[in-house]
């Protein structure tokens, strides 16, 4: 089977710094990683390939440096990597991104065969929208299964997929026809460590680089900033919540005394609360 995994190179949010003076996000010098949610999708894809045979193609859209993420995916064991990179893609929002990625997947289908499954992570850690996966599914007219926790069965003869999908208040078991698009939840598996042969192959592999034209995109108004109706109005750093704690010595006090002491401390910090409580109590 052929599986396409979409992944995104994102700044390592654990190491993002906010400029102390201008309050803007300092991306310079912040290491990049593969969006952690996408790794669950990739590992799932690799497991399916190992079971059913076939190939895993990883796809990303980004600046030339996004090649590092793809090479890493190859080290994990992916068979092929495609980098969609073009200045026309700069400034893409989720709408423009899903347009570009779906165009690339069409091209991938033409070149290496139609994928039975397209995987994405449930969302990225830098945008947190969870819109691109469904956006791709809509454009490629694929059935979509979002927030999938487990793939129960893939039946290649019947061309069906059965998955467990986590939803509010329970787990749904869903079955759909292939091809489909699946967005994977976190914690569903653990990314493997690629073997030495995989690492060597990845280091030597040629990452396929496509421009918009290469991916068969003719309508550039749907790409990048032009194709992005989302406008970022403001970026700001949240004011850090002050975390104050106070140690109150309660040694040797009775429960009543402890209660009174704690209430006194609370009232001292919340002027008006005591009067308000008394007023409420007076009503009873």
């Amino acid at each position, binding site marked *: 089977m052929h599986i396409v995994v979409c992944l995104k190179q994102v700044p390592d949010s654990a190491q993002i*710094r906010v400029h*102390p*003076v201008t309050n803007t996000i300092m991306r310079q*010098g912040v*290491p990049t990683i593969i969006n952690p949610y996408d790794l669950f999708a990739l590992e799932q894809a690799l497991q399916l390939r190992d079971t059913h045979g076939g190939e895993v193609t990883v796809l990303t859209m980004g600046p030339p440096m996004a090649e*590092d993420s793809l090479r890493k995916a190859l*080290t994990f064991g992916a068979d092929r990597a495609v980098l969609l990179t073009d200045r026309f893609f700069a400034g893409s929002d989720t709408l423009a991104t899903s347009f570009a990625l779906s165009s690339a997947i069409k091209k991938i289908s033409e070149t290496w065969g139609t994928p039975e499954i397209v995987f994405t992570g449930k969302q990225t850690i830098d945008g947190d929208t969870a819109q691109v996966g469904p956006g791709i599914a809509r454009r490629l007219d694929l059935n979509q299964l979002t927030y999938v926790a487990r793939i129960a069965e893939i039946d290649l003869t019947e061309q069906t997929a059965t998955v467990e999908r986590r939803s509010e208040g329970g787990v749904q078991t869903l079955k759909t026809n292939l091809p489909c698009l699946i967005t994977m939840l976190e914690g569903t598996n653990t990314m493997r*460590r*690629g*073997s*030495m*042969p*995989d*690492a*060597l192959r*990845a*280091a*030597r592999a040629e990452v396929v680089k496509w421009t918009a034209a290469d991916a068969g995109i003719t309508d550039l108004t749907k790409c990048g900033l032009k194709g992005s109706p989302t406008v970022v109005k403001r970026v700001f750093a949240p004011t850090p919540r002050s975390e104050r704690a106070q140690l109150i010595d309660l040694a040797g006090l009775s429960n009543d005394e402890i209660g009174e002491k704690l209430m006194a401390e609370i009232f001292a910090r919340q002027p008006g609360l005591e009067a308000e409580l008394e007023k409420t109590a007076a009503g009873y």
Partner: protein
Amino acid sequence: MIEERFDAIVVGAGPAGNACALTLAQRGLKVLQLERGEYPGSKNVQGAILYSDALEQLIPDFREDAPLERHIIEQRLWMMDDRSTTAMQYRSDDFNEEKPNRYTIIRAQFDKWFSKRVQAAGALVICETTVTELVQDDNGRVIGVRTDREGGFIKADVVVLAEGVNGLLGARAGLREVPAPKTVALAVKEMHFLPQETIESRFNLKGDEGVVIEAAGTITNGMTGTAFIYTNKESLAVGIGCLISDFAETGETPYGLLERFKSHPSAMPLLMGSEVKEYAAHMIPEGGYRAIPKLFGDGWLVVGDAGQFVNAVHREGSNLAMTTGRIAAETIAQIKTRRDPMTAENLSVYKKKLDQSFVMKDLKKYKNLPHALENKHLFTTYPQLLSSAMQTWFRVDGVDKKAKENAIVKSFFSARRFTGLLSDALSMARGWR
């Protein structure tokens, strides 16, 4: 099992490993470089100063795109007691030259750039891969490496150990000893972020000019070590390091020493208002010439920190690393061209070439210095004497100058006596010779 065979495997992607892999690849050898860090530079901690000469020999046009912070136009040497600093300062506009001689760099960025050049030259670079074992044949000849990844071992005609200060691989294979605590310093470093303009005004700089401060004295509490402040574009690298054996003996903590240095009245105003974003620790080989381990054998060579190639007096290391890496590669390439085997005998040319280079000449010159620097008085008594002498000299208080001179001389003799002064002077002179 994989049947992969390389002309050379380089273990480590620091300056020594990169210089070696680059040179080997440039000469057409099939090279594999293995790095345990997430990317080249991710594990590396250094002040850091880049010495242009050693890199120029590898990449003549490095200034065009290497991530450089500031070129150094001023060097300050501080001798400190608890309240005072006696400083020597050298600043020259001559250092504002077309091709500056020294730069401050941020290693994580620099090493990444360096590695890109290595890859462009044709070497295969694989990160996040730890070499766990040197594979030897029945005769003890190194024939390849095993890693922490599945899939068997990888063969090579020669393995270059650019594994850094610990030398664990070589030691594990019984090819060398691990360095003694007396020959290794533990250094800690913080990155203090400040706006560019603040750094420039505080250090009297314009444009890309930079300052380097090296400091010694009572800040190390009698332990053998030094502190430093280096100016980057928007940050200051502030650190301190002492011999591991001294830390073990005194029970001092590295961060305790660093706090002390940072709160010294001479250092504090330079750091005021900065935001600390990174804290790192690393070991530095400082044993000098006498601590150099065995450098070659059948199928293996040692370069960089792993070979103790650091000139502690001049704070040089990365240039020695790059030079030893380059010379090792040149040696290997020559043997390869002759189609000779990588035997200890053939690889011994590496050592001969090093002996003729500044690397060994400099380390030899200071071979007695590590011992001389074990003298506690250099880091306690003398800085205090110097400070009080300076103060006596500069304070105007009605005492005549002759009496002041006598008091200063007397202070030295009463602190160390004639024999102590003589022995300290002799051991320093011997160390310096």
